[in-house]
């Protein structure tokens, strides 16, 4: 919110089952690991089945007042419904990373907003498991924003994954990297 301080507000959105909550938690955890101030706030509601899920993350170098994100700097959107809901809320000069495997058309937003189309589902399938599309797209976001490194995120995996999933850490790490690489290439191409 304030001047040249770091105040990154992110929304990650998609439908239930796309690993939205996990991606959000990982970003928050990585932020803490990087000694930044962080708030993480999931949409919740096991009380209601179906529908969309989202996480709101704020990363700053001073304590965060409100954990709610209305107008994010960055949005990571995993399905069409989320584009409709969140794309228009992104601030000027912001960033939208979207899952082009499921979202055909680029979101129509202010031209100051940077758009990154990620075929996250496809890349995940390439790695052998569609469920890690969330990590792929998060990797791309980290790479593009360059606030927290992909390695810090990878190192934070063990803190957010339940013990019984620790065996998937290598796969998730690979996914983060694959996403980051894709973003690096895309950026290069855009140059």
């Amino acid at each position, binding site marked *: 919110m304030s001047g040249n301080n770091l105040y990154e507000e992110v929304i990650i959105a998609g*439908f239930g*089952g796309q690993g939205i909550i996990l991606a959000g938690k990982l970003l928050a955890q990585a932020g803490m690991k990087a000694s930044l101030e962080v708030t993480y706030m999931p949409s919740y509601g096991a009380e209601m089945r179906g529908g969309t899920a989202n996480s709101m993350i704020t990363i700053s170098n001073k304590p965060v007042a409100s954990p709610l994100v209305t107008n994010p700097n960055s949005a990571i959107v995993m*399905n*069409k419904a989320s584009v409709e809901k969140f794309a228009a809320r992104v601030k000027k000069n912001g960033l939208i990373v979207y899952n082009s495997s*499921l979202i055909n058309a680029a979101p129509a937003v202010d031209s100051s907003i940077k758009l990154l189309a990620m075929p996250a589902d496809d890349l995940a399938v390439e790695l052998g498991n569609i469920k890690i599309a969330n990590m792929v797209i998060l990797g791309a976001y980290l790479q593009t924003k360059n606030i927290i490194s992909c390695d810090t995120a990878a190192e934070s995996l063990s803190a957010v994954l339940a013990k019984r999933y620790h065996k998937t850490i290598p796969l998730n790490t690979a996914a983060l990297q694959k996403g980051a690489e894709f973003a690096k290439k895309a950026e290069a191409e855009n140059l």
Partner: protein
Amino acid sequence: MAGKIVIDTQRCKGCGLCVAVCPKKSIVISEESNKSGYFPAKFECNNCTGCAACAIVCPEAIIEVFAEERIIAVEQREKTKHTLSKAKT
């Protein structure tokens, strides 16, 4: 083919129960996801008998079953039985 089914695939959640119960293996899960992101069931028409097992088990009630007259007769017989079995079965 004595029967056929029509699935409202856009509303299908890909649970696969219909696939599991079809005695004729006439249903498969498709490779394309629908607009809700589910991979829906798809009718393959191998020898469907119109037995309605798929429809009965479908939690979304989105399978309509069509069958030749003979089978309808069976269904109706059952319905009549129901009606007779009123109070105090």
